């Protein structure tokens, strides 16, 4: 067992941190306040090779393994405090590009992977008004017709929906058999009958747009189907293994950045004639933040190692998702306490992390659902 990065991985991480600091640190406080998505930052990430890191070279990617890609995404989060941007990047990479890589036909891979990794936008559209945690109770339908399918329904809270070039949409081709009648489709952003909703204001992660996708008699050709009819639930479950494992990769980097910040602050801020870090209530919090960071890293890279080996990772992806999301909330809250009022005002960006972190205990399956998955997979 080796817990170290290779020299090459260290180099890539250093480059990612530098890139993030130099290219992605623009007017974040203002963009957060106005929920502004900056397409230019997305383009720079694509150009730097972030989106294509794990995509095979024949589709224009860098063809890196999962561990290396996750290491880069962690470094990106360390250098880039824009959690809305890094979440959107991770969402597209793990929940849109990865399923296309795994289940797409050659034609689909050639059509969508180069587009997405060069700065296009991909959405993963499962949630609906009446089916959130109960995903397979979805009501969107896909009726077979000559040469294709007609889709009808509404998808809600979808990351990148307002700007998407392609959406991975799950719909019922046979509503009488529940999860066994769900099929996955790649719906193009300009498909007739698809309406992309506007950017819905939210508590945190404001720099990553999200909203509804409405399908009204939206025709897609047979070639838009991803995988066989009725395999949509399994494709979705597989895509969740990836998303839950790695969507927090950059947030682990954020936790490392938070830790550096609070250590620095605890050393320099003085009260009662001493640096506040000398007070055990403060230093205990910092120790807990370090512990959360280390345990989060262990789970993140264990999941990456499992998926690199081609092993089933559902249990580990649920463990990672639960622990990383809750840790980010707890550490963001600790960072505010340590900074006092400076942590609470918007100007310094400390409070933004907590607002961003809270979304993580909801998306990709709530913490309650992850606990259920973990218990059930252990045979409870």
């Amino acid at each position, binding site marked *: 067992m080796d817990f170290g990065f290779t020299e090459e991985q260290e180099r890539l991480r250093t480059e990612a941190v530098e890139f993030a600091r130099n290219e992605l640190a623009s007017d974040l406080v203002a963009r957060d306040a106005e929920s502004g998505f900056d397409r230019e930052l997305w383009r720079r990430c694509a150009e730097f090779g972030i989106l294509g890191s794990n995509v095979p070279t024949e589709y224009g990617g860098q063809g890196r393994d999962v561990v290396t890609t996750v290491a880069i995404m962690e470094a990106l989060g360390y250098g880039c405090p824009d959690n809305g941007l890094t979440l959107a990047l991770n969402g597209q990479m793990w929940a849109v590009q990865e399923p296309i890589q795994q289940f797409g036909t050659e034609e689909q891979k050639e059509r969508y992977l180069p587009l997405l990794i060069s700065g296009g936008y991909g959405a993963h559209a499962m949630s609906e008004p009446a089916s959130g945690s109960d995903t397979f109770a979805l009501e969107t339908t896909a009726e077979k017709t000559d040469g294709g399918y007609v889709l009808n329904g509404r998808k809600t809270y979808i990351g990148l929906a307002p700007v998407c070039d392609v959406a991975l949409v799950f719909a019922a081709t046979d509503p009488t*058999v529940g999860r066994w009648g769900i099929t996955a489709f790649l719906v193009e952003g300009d498909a007739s009958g698809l309406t992309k909703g506007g950017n819905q204001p939210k508590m945190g992660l404001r720099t990553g747009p999200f909203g509804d996708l409405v399908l009204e008699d939206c025709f897609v050709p047979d070639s838009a189907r991803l995988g066989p009819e009725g395999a949509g639930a399994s494709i979705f479950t597989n895509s969740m293994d990836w998303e839950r494992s790695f969507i927090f990769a950059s947030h682990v980097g954020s936790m490392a950045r938070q830790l550096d910040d609070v250590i620095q602050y605890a050393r320099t801020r003085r009260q009662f004639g001493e640096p506040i870090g000398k007070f055990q209530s403060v230093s205990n919090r910092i120790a807990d933040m370090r512990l959360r960071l280390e345990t989060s890293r262990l789970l993140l890279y264990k999941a990456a190692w499992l998926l690199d080996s081609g092993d089933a990772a559902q249990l580990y992806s649920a463990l990672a998702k639960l622990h990383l999301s809750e840790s980010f909330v707890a550490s963001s809250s600790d960072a505010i306490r340590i900074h006092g009022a400076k942590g609470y005002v918007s100007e310094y960006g400390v409070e933004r992390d907590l607002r961003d972190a809270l979304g993580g205990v909801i998306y990709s399956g709530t913490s309650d659902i992850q606990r259920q998955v973990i218990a059930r997979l252990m045979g409870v």
Partner: protein
Amino acid sequence: MEHAIVRFVNEELLGGNGPRVTADDEIVLDGTVDSLGVTRLVDFIETEFKLAVPAQDVTIDNFRTITTMAAYVRTRQESAATT
């Protein structure tokens, strides 16, 4: 093969409680085995019969009953043997 799967469902998934399933019951459609149960069933099949079950093969045609699951496993094993 059917026996091994029936035993797994009855003893592991259903914990030895309640009505016992048979190889021809439509256990994934009648609610006996739910979504997470399907995941465990797929894990069991992969480990027990030493084959990888890709997500696109987890369809109702292959998983309707234990009999169809066993038929799927046999087809996969035969095609592996001939390649």
